[in-house]
C-alpha cells in the first residue's frame, strides 16, 4: 500500500501539469519575486543618484503638495541646485536633516545593493513570495482536491483499487513537492536577476561593513517558508474534502488569511487580552515562524519561533487527521458539479 504512494504522486503530477492553473500560479510567484528584485534595483539607482531623499511636508511650503528633495542637491555647493521656492529657514532645516543622515548613507546604500544582487536578491524575492505562496498554494490545493468531487472522477479513481488514504497522500505529497519546486524556481529566477542586475549596475558601492545574507541563511529561510505552508495546505484540504467543493477550499484559503489579520488588528485594539489569544492563531504563527515575512500586517509582539512551530504542528495534525478521516469515511457519489 505505502509502496504505491510514489506512483500515485507521479500520476498526480501527470494530471496537474496538464492544467493551466499550475503554470499561471507559478508565473505569478515568479512575477512577484522579480518585481521585488527589480524594485530594489530601481530603489538603489534612485538612492545612489539622489543621495537619499527628504520629504517636505505641505505645512512647510504654504500648503502645497508634499514633495521630495534629493540630499545630493541640498548638500551641493552649487546654489543652482538648491530649490528657490522654499523659505530659507525650511531649506536650512532640510539640509541639516540630510547632513544628519549622511553618516548612515553608505550602509544604507550597501544594504540596498545587497538586496538585488546575489545572494540577497533571493532573500528579497523570498520575503515577498512566502506570504503569496500561502494563497497560491491554497488555490492549487483546493483545485487539485476539489476537481475529483466536481467532475466525479474520484469514483472512477477509487474503483481502480488505489486505496483512499494512499490516493490522498499521493496528492498531498505532489502538492508539497510542487510548493518546494515553486520556491526553488522563484529563488533561481531571483538569483538570475541578481546576476543580471549586478552586471547592469556595475561597480558595487564601497563596503560599509554591512553583513550580507549567506546562501545558508537563504536555504534555511526557504525551508522555513516551505514548512509554514504545511498547516495551510492541511486546512484547505480539510475544508475542500468536507465541502466537496473547490470554491469552498479557495474561499477558505483566501478568506482566512485576511480575516484572521483583520480580526487580530481590530480586537487587539479593543481588548488587551486578545493578543494572548491571537498568539494561537494560524497565520500569526506562520508569520512568527517565518520571521514576519508573510506580507501580512502584524500587531504587538509575535510569538517566539518554538511556540510558533508547536502551534503550526498542532494545526497541521488536526486538519490533516480530519481531512483523512472524512476522506476515508464518506460515501463517494458521482459528480457534485460544484466548482
Amino acid at each position, binding site marked *: *500500500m505505502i509502496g*504505491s504512494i510514489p*506512483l*500515485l504522486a*507521479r*500520476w498526480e503530477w*501527470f*494530471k496537474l501539469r*496538464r*492544467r493551466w492553473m499550475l503554470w499561471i500560479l507559478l508565473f505569478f510567484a515568479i512575477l512577484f519575486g522579480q518585481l521585488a528584485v527589480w524594485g530594489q534595483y530601481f530603489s538603489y539607482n534612485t538612492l545612489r543618484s539622489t543621495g537619499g531623499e527628504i520629504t517636505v511636508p505641505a505645512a512647510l511650503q504654504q500648503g502645497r503638495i508634499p514633495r521630495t528633495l534629493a540630499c545630493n542637491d541640498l548638500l551641493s555647493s552649487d546654489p543652482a541646485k538648491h530649490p528657490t521656492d522654499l523659505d530659507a529657514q525650511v531649506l536650512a532645516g532640510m539640509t541639516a536633516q540630510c547632513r544628519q543622515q549622511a553618516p548612515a548613507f553608505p550602509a544604507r546604500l550597501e544594504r540596498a545593493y545587497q538586496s538585488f544582487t546575489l545572494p540577497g536578491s533571493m532573500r528579497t524575492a523570498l520575503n515577498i513570495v512566502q506570504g503569496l505562496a500561502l494563497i497560491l498554494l491554497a488555490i492549487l490545493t483546493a483545485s487539485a482536491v476539489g*476537481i475529483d468531487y466536481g*467532475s*466525479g*472522477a*474520484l*469514483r*472512477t*479513481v*477509487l*474503483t*481502480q*483499487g*488505489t*486505496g483512499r488514504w*494512499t*490516493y490522498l497522500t499521493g496528492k498531498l505529497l505532489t502538492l508539497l513537492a510542487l510548493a518546494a519546486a515553486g520556491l526553488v524556481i522563484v529563488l533561481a529566477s531571483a538569483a538570475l536577476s541578481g546576476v543580471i542586475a549586478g552586471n547592469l549596475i556595475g561597480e558595487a558601492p564601497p563596503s560599509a561593513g554591512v553583513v550580507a545574507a549567506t546562501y545558508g541563511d537563504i536555504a534555511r529561510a526557504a525551508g522555513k517558508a516551505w514548512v509554514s505552508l504545511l498547516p495551510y495546505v492541511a486546512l484547505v484540504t480539510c475544508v475542500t474534502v468536507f465541502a466537496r467543493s473547490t470554491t469552498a477550499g479557495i474561499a477558505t484559503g483566501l478568506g482566512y488569511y485576511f480575516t484572521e489579520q483583520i480580526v487580530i488588528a481590530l480586537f487587539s485594539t479593543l481588548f488587551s487580552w486578545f493578543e494572548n489569544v491571537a498568539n494561537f492563531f494560524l497565520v500569526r504563527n506562520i508569520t512568527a515562524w517565518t520571521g514576519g515575512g508573510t506580507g501580512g500586517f502584524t500587531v504587538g509582539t509575535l510569538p517566539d519561533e518554538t511556540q510558533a512551530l508547536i502551534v503550526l504542528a498542532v494545526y497541521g495534525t488536526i486538519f490533516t487527521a480530519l481531512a483523512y478521516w472524512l476522506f476515508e*469515511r464518506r*460515501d*463517494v*457519489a*458521482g*459528480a457534485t458539479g460544484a466548482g
Partner: protein
Amino acid sequence: MLDTPDVTPPPDFVIETADLTKRYGEVVAVDGLSLRVPRGGVFGFLGPNGSGKTTTMGMLLGLVHPTSGEARIFGDSARHPATLKKVGAMVESPTFYPYLSGRDNLRYFQGVKRRGAPGDIDRLLDLVDLGKRAKSKFSTYSLGMKQRLGIACALLGDPELLFLDEPTNGLDPAGVVEVRELIRQLGRGERTVILSSHLLAETELVCDNVAVLSRGKLIAQGSIKELLRSHDTVRLRSTDDAAATSILREISWVEGVRADDGYLLVDAAKERSWEISRALAQRGVHVSELTPLHRSLEEYFMEITETDPTTGRAKS
C-alpha cells in the same frame, strides 16, 4: 504416502453478499441483500429506479460503506484495493477529468491501476470507436462518446470482473448493438460481467443469470430460463370453466388458475400442457383451445416488481 498439495480452489462465486444493508437515515436503500454471482458469463442486475442497484454496486466497489452485512469479491473484502485491481467498473454516468483528453484519461487510470500495457489504450480506444477523438478533451465529448470512454476505462487491465451500469445510455441504435455484442464477447470464458440495465429486452439477449431488486430487496435470482419457466402460463378455453378450475386446482404441479377475458390462465410448466389436457378430458371437461404463453423478461420483471406495464411505475 503422497503429499496432497494444499491448493485452495478459486471460489465458485465471484460476488457474495450476506445480509448487506445500507440506510440513509430513515430510508433503507438496500435491505438485507444476500446475493451470489457465479463465475463467468453475463449477470443481469435488474430493478426499477431506486431499487438499490447502484447502491449495491457502490458497496461492492468500496465506494459506499454498508450499514451492516458483508460484501465479498473473489472471496476478499470488497473494499480491499488489491481486489479492485481485478475489477473494472462503470457506475452510473462515466466520470473523468474534463481537462484531459480521452487518451490521457485512460493513461492516467491505467497508471494508477498498474495493470496492462501502453498499447492497450489505443486498442481500447479503437474498440469503442474513439480512436479519432482520442486527443480531444473529455469535456468536448457527447454523451455517447463519454459512455464509450467509460466502457474503455472499465476494460483497462483486462479485468476478471466487470461492472457495467447502463452501458448503452446515450448510444445510437448501431452503438447499442455494438455494445451488446461486446458484452456478449466479454462474458465468454472466465470473465464475469455484471450488467445493470433498464433495457430488459437487451438484457434478455445478453444475460445468462439475473438478480431482480425491488425496494432494496432481492426478489428473484437465477438463470433467465429457469426464472421464466417458473412463471410459465398455459392459456385454455374449456367446455366448463368452473369444473376445469376445480380439477386443475387439485393437481400438485399447477401453481394457480385464474379466469381472464374468457380464458383460464393456468400457472404451470408449458411442457406439461398435454397433461393438463388429459387430466381435464379424463374428468369429462374438454379443451377447445390451449396455448402455452411465452413471457418475456420484461413481462416477468413487471409482474414481480409490481410495476404497471402501461405507466412503468410501481403499482400502488
